[in-house]
Every structure is written in C-alpha cells, then in structure tokens.
C-alpha cells in the first residue's frame, strides 16, 4: 500500500520557518533599494513533491520594513522593525523554493511593498508625522541642503546621494523635514570637490564605500539643520549579487515591486 502523503505543512512548523528564513535572506540579499525587511508572518505554504528528497515549496510571506538600509552590514537579527506609529512599510512576497536532499534554494521571488495607509496611522496617532512622497520639493530641498552642509564640513571623502529612503514632514510643533538617504563616497576629498565637483565620481566597485545619512531640517520657529552620516567602509559584495545600478539618484517609493 503506497505510503500516505505527508500531512500538509503548517505555517509555524520548523520546516516552514526554515524556508521563510532562506527566502527573507534571499530577498534582502537581492534587493538594491530601501531597507531590509524582516519576517512578520508566514501567510501560506504549499509543498509540491517532485520525487524522493525533492520538493518545490511555494511561500506567501508578510514582511515589515526595518530601520536598516539595504546596504548596511548590520545583521538582520539586529535590525529593528519600524513601529506602526513610525508609519510602517509592509512587504508582500511570493517565493518559490526548491528543497533537494534537505538543502533549500530560492528559484524565484516577487514582492510588493507599500506604506501603511495614512488614515490607519492618523486614527491611532493623530500627531504622528507621516511618510511624504520622496519627490516632494520640501524633501528634495532638505536632502540637498543636508548633504551640502555635511560635505562642507567633512574631512573625509565627498559624498554623493544614492537614493532617498524615507522622508516625513512634521507640521507641529513648528515645521520640520526629517529625511533618511543613502550616500556613496567619491574619489574626491571635500576640498577637491569645491574646485571641480564634476570630477567627483563614486568609487569603483572594488573600493566602494557606501553610507547612510539622517537629517532634520527645522524651518519654524527658527531655522536649524542637523545631519549625521555614517559610512560602512568597503564591503565585498557576494559574487552573485549585482551592485547598485548606477548612476543617478533613485527615489525609493513606499509602493514598489521587485522580482
């Protein structure tokens, strides 16, 4: 009598969690924009037996954005998930994996990320500042002023903007633009950049040095600008992961698809 098919996997079974961990690491490892995502919930899992020790696994995952930029070397386990009040961004991913002789590998993934609805946040936290569209002129102006301010004071390399990750505008008390953006070190010192900024290019892949800045630009009651940038130092990217697509600046919109 043929053996009865194994009972369907539950979403909280160890095998499902192991598959989800491989999937999340793959998604973060192959993403080039925004922030790292953490697993919030395994929505569904389906296993299709191909043969002895050979299964295809279909996972439906619910992820949440963390505070770690995608290029940060910080391990995902140390990345804090953005709270609901900080205007969380959710990722819905469908991932296809193969499990051969117990080894899991990702065959394909498709994700859609989107910020939580403004109404939901306002309902719970009326005064919480909300995410702004990243091509908002106030946001663009604040990022430009912050990076210029940093470059005018740094003794390190001249930094170029890679992408704006997040921005919020606080309308009371006062008027403040809070931004987060990714930067890359160039082949110029800040001094050299003053002479000929056009010659300042991002460092080549084998010397690349990325970083991240946070800035708060207060407009009222009085003008103030706080900028903090941290460079990660050169990181050797894993061989099968392409580096950021150059050149130019990209704006990581909360709603985006990646495959």
């Amino acid at each position, binding site marked *: 009598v043929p053996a009865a098919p194994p009972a*369907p*996997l*539950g*979403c*909280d*079974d160890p095998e*499902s969690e192991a598959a989800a961990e491989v999937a999340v690491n793959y998604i973060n490892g192959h993403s080039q924009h925004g922030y790292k995502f*953490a*697993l*919030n*919930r*395994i*929505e*569904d*899992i389906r296993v299709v037996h191909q043969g002895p020790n050979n299964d295809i696994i279909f996972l439906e995952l*619910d992820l*949440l954005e963390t505070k770690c930029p995608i290029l940060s070397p910080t391990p995902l386990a140390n990345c804090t*998930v953005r*709270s*609901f009040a900080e205007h*969380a961004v*959710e990722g819905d991913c469908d991932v296809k994996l193969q499990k051969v002789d117990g080894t899991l590998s990702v065959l394909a993934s498709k994700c859609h990320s989107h910020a*939580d609805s403004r109404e*939901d946040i306002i309902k719970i936290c009326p005064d919480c500042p909300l995410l702004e569209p990243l091509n908002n002129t106030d946001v663009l102006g604040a990022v430009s002023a912050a990076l210029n301010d940093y470059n005018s004071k740094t003794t390190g390399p001249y930094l170029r903007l890679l992408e704006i990750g997040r921005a919020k505008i606080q309308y009371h008390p006062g008027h403040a633009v809070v931004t987060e953006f990714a930067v890359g070190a160039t082949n110029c010192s800040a001094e050299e950049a003053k002479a000929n900024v056009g010659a300042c290019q991002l460092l080549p892949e084998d010397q690349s040095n990325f970083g991240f800045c946070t800035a708060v630009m207060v407009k009222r009651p009085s003008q103030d600008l706080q900028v903090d940038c941290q460079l990660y130092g050169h990181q050797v990217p894993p061989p099968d992961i392409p580096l950021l697509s150059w050149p130019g600046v990209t704006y990581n919109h909360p709603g985006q698809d990646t495959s």
Partner: protein
Amino acid sequence: SLTKRAVAEAAQHDKVPRPVGFVPPPPPCPGKIRHFDI
C-alpha cells in the same frame, strides 16, 4: 449487502463523541504574527 443510509442518519451515528474540553487544533495557516498586523 451494503445499504445506503441517509447522510444525516449516518452522520448522527458516525459522529465521534468529542471529549469534554476538546479544543480543535489551530488552522495550519496563516502562521503567527511576529511583530504587528498592518
């Protein structure tokens, strides 16, 4: 010979008595929420 009994009657007879306090297992999916539900 097999006689086909009405489903309701069969169900009545075949209903397995549940032990007192029986809690059905949670549905296998979706799984637990690790942070919060959006």
